[in-house]
């Protein structure tokens, strides 16, 4: 019986205390008709050693090579201390800090996390995280519609260059509350919002850098949205904020709600999850911010301590009238991200972001030396860029994969002539040799 400590004597003595003959008697309130007495299609249990052997085999099958894929998930280096500490049992096996006095570690860490995210985005407050970037945007949109009292409209504008999975997720979640999503026009990969678009909009979503890696004109977009009393929701990569103007400083008055995916901050790619989504806003909107929030307070002797605060927004108190049905955050990933940001500090994060920008530009410069390869958009980009390979990328991708290179994300169906284009990314972990290998593999074809 793996993980069950009962000796035969324990069991007998417990049954005796209960005055019953067997454990089966404990299930006598379940009607016989719905009982099952075995799980015939499930095999017998195995030892830890056998399980690990099997899992090691499965993990090795997926060793896929040098990664030039980005598209919302990035191959960054993670310092050793991050997961060493995050994997400590006291972080790994605690739960939501309902008993604050016995959870000061988690609560203080969340408070520090909120401080770091608020500073990175130049907003006033951050929550303790939600599931991931896509669901964070869905929550941000629901929140924007709740807080924008100047507009009764439920029309939300989203950019055509929004991450396609984010758009799909938002559509699955927000349309059930009568919210209409409308795509803004785009020109050369950038959002070109028109006056017609803006009419009667309650909120405008701005992804920056956008899905295609391009830098939007965030100041103009923000000001134009605010001119018509629409709220601005920024969707950002937290790593980019080490270099780029933070959403709180966009335009004359800044974005109103900021969200994104925290994966670049010390979270392994791990097939895309678990990661965490973050949500930041202005203090005036804090009571409509969904999710957990940690706050600093005092005990009766005046000692500082931390608690979950503003709980009256949440489902366990407000039930059907809660700001969201979310019940947890992504605590463990927030732990890792907080340690990551601490180890890097402002200077370290700046260097990594710069290195990503530099490497991707190096990659693009090198590959576009080839006559058939070109940049699709002649616009400044951050650490991802759309390259046109002049022919269908399908065979090219397969050949590169077989030679140990993940060459990028094919854009088939996502942009005009997308079957010839890939979104490429070279983070700080890519070396000059990696870039050279990509070049060589291309020329070999």
């Amino acid at each position, binding site marked *: 019986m793996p993980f069950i*400590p009962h000796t035969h004597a324990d069991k007998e003595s*417990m049954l005796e*205390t209960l005055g019953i003959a067997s*454990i089966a008697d*404990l299930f006598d*309130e379940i*009607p016989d008709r719905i009982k099952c007495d075995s799980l015939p299609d*499930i095999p017998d*249990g195995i030892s830890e050693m056998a399980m690990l052997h099997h899992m*090691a085999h499965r993990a090795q099958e997926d060793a896929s090579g040098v990664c030039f894929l980005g598209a*919302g*998930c990035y*191959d960054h280096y993670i*310092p050793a201390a991050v997961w060493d*500490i995050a*994997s400590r049992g*006291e*972080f790994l096996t*605690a*739960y939501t*800090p309902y008993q604050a006095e016995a959870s*000061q*570690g988690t609560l203080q*860490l969340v*408070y*520090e996390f*909120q*401080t770091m995210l608020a500073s*990175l985005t130049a907003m006033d407050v*951050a929550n303790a995280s939600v*599931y*991931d970037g896509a*669901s964070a945007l869905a929550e941000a949109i629901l929140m924007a519609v709740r807080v924008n009292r100047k507009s009764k409209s439920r029309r939300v504008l989203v950019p055509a260059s929004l991450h396609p*999975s984010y758009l799909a*997720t938002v559509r*699955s979640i927000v349309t059930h509350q009568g919210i209409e999503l409308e795509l803004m026009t785009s020109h050369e990969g950038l959002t070109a919002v028109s006056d017609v678009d803006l009419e009667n909009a309650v909120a405008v979503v701005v992804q920056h850098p956008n899905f295609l890696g391009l830098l939007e004109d965030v100041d103009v977009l923000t000001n134009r949205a605010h001119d018509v009393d629409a709220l601005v929701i920024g969707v950002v990569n937290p790593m980019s*904020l080490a270099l780029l103007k*933070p959403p709180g400083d966009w335009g004359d008055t800044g974005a109103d709600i900021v969200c994104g995916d925290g994966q670049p901050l010390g979270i392994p*790619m791990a*097939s*895309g999850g678990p990661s965490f989504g973050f949500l930041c806003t202005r*203090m005036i909107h804090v009571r409509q911010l969904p999710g957990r929030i940690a*706050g*600093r*307070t*005092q005990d009766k002797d005046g000692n500082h*301590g931390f*608690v979950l*605060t*503003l709980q009256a927004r949440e*489902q366990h108190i407000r039930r*059907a009238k809660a700001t969201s*049905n979310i*019940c947890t955050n*992504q605590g463990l*990933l927030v732990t890792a991200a907080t340690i990551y940001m601490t180890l890097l*500090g402002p200077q*370290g994060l700046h*260097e990594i972001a710069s290195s990503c920008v530099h490497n991707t530009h190096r990659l693009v410069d090198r590959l576009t030396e080839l006559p058939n390869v070109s940049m699709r958009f002649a616009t400044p980009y951050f650490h991802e860029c759309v390259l046109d390979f002049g022919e269908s990328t399908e065979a090219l991708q397969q050949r590169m994969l077989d030679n140990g290179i993940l060459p990028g*994300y094919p854009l088939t169906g996502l942009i005009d002539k997308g079957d010839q284009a890939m979104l490429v990314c070279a983070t700080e972990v890519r070396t000059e040799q990696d870039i050279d290998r990509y070049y060589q593999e291309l020329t070999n074809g």
Partner: protein
Amino acid sequence: MVETIFDKSRPTRRAVAQRVKEGFAQQPLPEHQLRSAPPMLPEVSELQAVRHFTNLARKNFSIDTHFYPLGSCTMKYNPRGVHRAAMQEGFLNRHPLTPTSHSQGVLACLFELQELLQNVTGTAQVCLTPMAGAQGELTGALMIKAYHTDNNDHERTEIIVPTAAHGTNPATASMAGLIAKEVEVDADGDVDLESLKRVVGPKTAGIMLTNPSTCAVFERRIQAISDIVHDAGGLLYYDGANLNAILGRARPGDMQFDVLHLNLHKTFATPHGGGGPGAGPVGANELLAPYLPTPMVTKTENGYGWLDRSVRPKSIGRLSSFMGNVGILLRAYAYSMMLGANGMRNVSAYATLNANYLMKRLSNAGFHPAYPDRRATHEFAISLRQEAKATGVTAMDFAKRLLDYGFHAPTTYFPLLIPECFLIEPTETETKEELDAFADAMIAILKEAQTDPDLVKQAPHQQPVGRLDEVQAVRQLDVTAH
């Protein structure tokens, strides 16, 4: 005075080993797009960072350090082998958009987990992507709504939830654009059938039920409930929060539930991580399976692959950036492999034995189970109302004093309909000695409440901080250090 990491920060100090490259000659980004002042992140050495977070960790109660009988949360042992299995380089380094030809290892695990969860729950198909129980609930509610819409049954806008239900149930109904209608629970903790008959009707989209219920008893009249709701044209949603109580002994599919979610972080022992991540896979019968979210994993003669919207046109769509919390799914898969069929049946057997034993010990000592004539399931509720009336010591005071005795408190004040409630879930991985020690602590605290109530009311006394002022935390909101 508590020092935050920002108090330890000094300008220009850094963890030098984490330096990558610096001094790039040319910055290719336009000047007006750049940040003018750096973010206020801490500037500390690597040792300072390691020491700070290690010391924070030590201020937490956790399963690895303390008995943690938090009802409804299933705080059982999270096997280290399982953690190691999921933390292997091959799994961690896989980019989510890697083509399926180079993802057969992880896809095989996910496909086998889908099949295993179908077997365990008695459903036709399972989708693994929902990222937590609450998102699983939303998935179920949206699938029910999609089914009715598909049948041009547009009047079905109400979803029934018991008064004792977890807050996520009504909150989920609202998120799905449905109206939550409450149904009463009777004195024995079962859904009141007369109340149910009054609530169901042509507007009923479905009912959300947990079984064993949030009152910690098995819903004995599940067949009658199912008939009443189905006869009215509604569908049954099973909230899998308490599936560990009946694992391998009764399957929600056999109870006529149409759609359900599982909390892998409960029944399948994945770590709670201080608040998450979880995973809330959703299963459905043949009727609702077409509406499951995407992506799902399929197996063909060419190997494993994804099922997306193009082949599942009725799907309610995508709910996450990629494929949900794969790392958690891998842990649940590894755990279930170690348990096997018998191990799963032992989960429900010993979780139930431990809960009934602890309930008996407390009841023998004079505490009051909320449903004294019922079997405990994997957990049980006691009401401290009489103790509070006699001594002025509330359930919250008891909870805080338990911390001083080295036990995490049970869930307090839930379910809401039980006054001064403790919901106690010992789990199958605790020893009899631990349960006895907890019962002894409860007895000792009751004695303190009678002889020195202030001692209990002022608790905790031996934690890093005394009882914290939550009212002040709201009134003088302090949510960032700067």
